[in-house]
């Protein structure tokens, strides 16, 4: 078995240690005998259907984010990502990546920056910097990470949050919600859409890196990727996650 991880804009969107998520996905697949290829997709590159089995999209600096936003639209990569997500390809996007996949970003001045329109959410610039450790209750158990953002993201009606904030700010520091799980059928019912309830794209503000300390979420992404690629449920071999669990518990105990 083989998985291709599509790393979106790794040269521009990688400033907050998010590469750890790629490392975690790669290692956790390889430890189970699954071959992994990392495909970097950046400005000027083309993206075709089935190019990647999982997408990862990290956070970047403000200037880089502007370049990426316009490339997503100009190169049609945004559209292609959406199309692949509708097919069930899993995606993890963090901070800037999460914002760019929403409806739009409203800066302090000037017009709205249109997003890819995957997540039913929009982000408004604020003057508060939301920095610190964050713990979230989710369907993957307690997730722990670190957030550092000033954009406030609001979920639209019918959107699913990734979880409830136990410690930290989350999407906007106001509604105690963090992140978003895209829900294909409930958000945009399309005529010929598969009826199944795919929820495979995740947006979140959690750096940390997120996946190494939250291996359940990492495995969920891998499992979804295998299921879509090979057309059947594939059970992942269990790993010894004692150290992962120790690090996760230590962080939760420290911050929550």
């Amino acid at each position: 078995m083989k998985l291709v991880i599509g790393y979106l804009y790794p040269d521009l969107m990688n400033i907050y240690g998010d590469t750890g998520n790629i490392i975690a996905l790669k290692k956790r697949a390889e430890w189970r005998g699954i071959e992994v290829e990392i495909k970097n997709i950046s400005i000027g590159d083309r993206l075709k259907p089935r190019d990647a089995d999982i997408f990862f999209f990290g956070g970047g600096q403000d200037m880089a984010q502007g370049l990426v936003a316009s490339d997503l639209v100009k190169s049609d990569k945004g559209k292609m990502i959406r199309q692949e997500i509708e097919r069930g390809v899993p995606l993890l996007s963090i901070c800037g990546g999460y914002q760019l996949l929403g409806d739009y970003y409203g800066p302090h001045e000037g017009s709205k920056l249109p997003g890819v329109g995957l997540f039913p959410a929009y982000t408004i610039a604020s003057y508060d910097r939301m920095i610190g450790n964050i713990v979230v209750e989710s369907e993957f158990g307690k997730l722990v990470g670190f957030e550092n953002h000033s954009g406030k993201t609001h979920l639209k009606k019918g959107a699913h949050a990734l979880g409830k904030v136990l410690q930290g700010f989350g999407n906007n520091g106001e509604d105690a919600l963090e992140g978003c799980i895209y829900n294909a059928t409930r958000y945009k019912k399309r005529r010929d859409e598969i009826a199944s309830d795919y929820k495979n794209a995740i947006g979140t503000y959690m750096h940390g890196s997120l996946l190494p300390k939250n291996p359940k979420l990492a495995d969920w992404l891998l499992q979804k990727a295998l299921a879509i690629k090979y057309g059947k449920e594939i059970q992942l071999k269990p790993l010894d996650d004692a150290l992962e669990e120790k690090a996760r518990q230590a962080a939760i105990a420290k911050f929550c």
Partner: protein
Amino acid sequence: MILGKGVHFLTRTLNIGGGSAAPGYYALKIDPDLVVHLASQIPCTIIITGTNGKTTTARMLAQFAKESGLKVIRNHTGSNLERGIASALLSHFPLLTSHLPDLAIWELDEAAFNKVIPKLKPDMIVFLNAFRDQLDRYGEVDSVVKKWCQTLKVVDPKTSIFINGDDHNLLALKDCFKGSVQTFGLESNKITGERATMQNKTHKLDFEARNIKLNGLTGSSFLLQTTNYKLQTTLPVPGIYHVYNFLAAYILAKKLDISDEYILNSLKTFQPAFGRVEKFDFGYIFLIKNPTGATQVLQTLAPELKSNDRLLLALNDNLADGTDVSWIWDIDFEQCKVQPFGFAQGESAKCKVFVSGTRAEDMALRLKYADIDPKQIAIENNLERAFEEARIGLKGRLFILPTYTALLELQRLLTKRGLKKHYWKEAT
């Protein structure tokens, strides 16, 4: 000023700190213009800023200057905020103007630079690099450089500005300054910094290190090429990053008209600063603060590690370390394909690794994902106990890689055991 001197004496006598920032803190509360009053009386002021290498560069330059007979004042204990400068001025400023220092060397961190520059009116400024560092404190690299640019716009055009020409982010500063700028860098093994979109144009350097030979932990040698002469140099501190620090110190020294003879002479006895490749009986201490610096340290260290050596990585998440530990995932452990990182030509890693600090578990996990067998990793949050355990049965050398506050803690431990002097008692 008398009051500041009093606080300085008290903190040192009561042993509640090196006395490196507290007197300045109180003095600034009483007289906010203190820095300006005192600093403006010193004939020459040099500013060193950047993410990595400030302390080593300042220390080298101070040594060159002293060798040539100049009287130097500097904020030398890594206390590089405004109050560190005020404290240095208070404790070393003579009461007689006839004893004034000839030269002030101030290291300023990314943020303090913009605040202090307009007050200090320096004669020379050197920009070492701009790497991502403690994003929760300093912000993103782009915004750091942008603020430097704004500050430079109002600096006197007669000021001598020197820039690391290999760091793509810094090159943009050339256009922010009305006067002329000189650059330094390396012919090969360049550390190009954070800018993702590489510029194709190779930039012509005014000072360039060529034919660089790295000699393990003992140092390096290279040919220094300037626009009109060459100088063969042997550096007694290891790693590519120290070549950059030396170039910066050298250029400043030349601008001060210090002869090569003094420079090369004093280099022979150069001792790195406070936890920067510091050598002890048991091994070495290498401070790690950010991904680029830590990767550089590992690249220097990895080929030198032997199977009976040990590693102790101490990761804290206090304010001065950065509260976000995500950066450890950007350290390129994967690239160091040698022991103890588990890749040594089919041989499984033998070198034992200890992790400590407030976020020891995170560091252990990072190592696991760099293919180090978790069975080889001992976790002990308490640094004192970790340090003791790591030395039990130690046959080789112990390499300690602490973050900033872990380094301070180590200094106290080593002092307590008589393995090290109080850092403020060290000769400057």
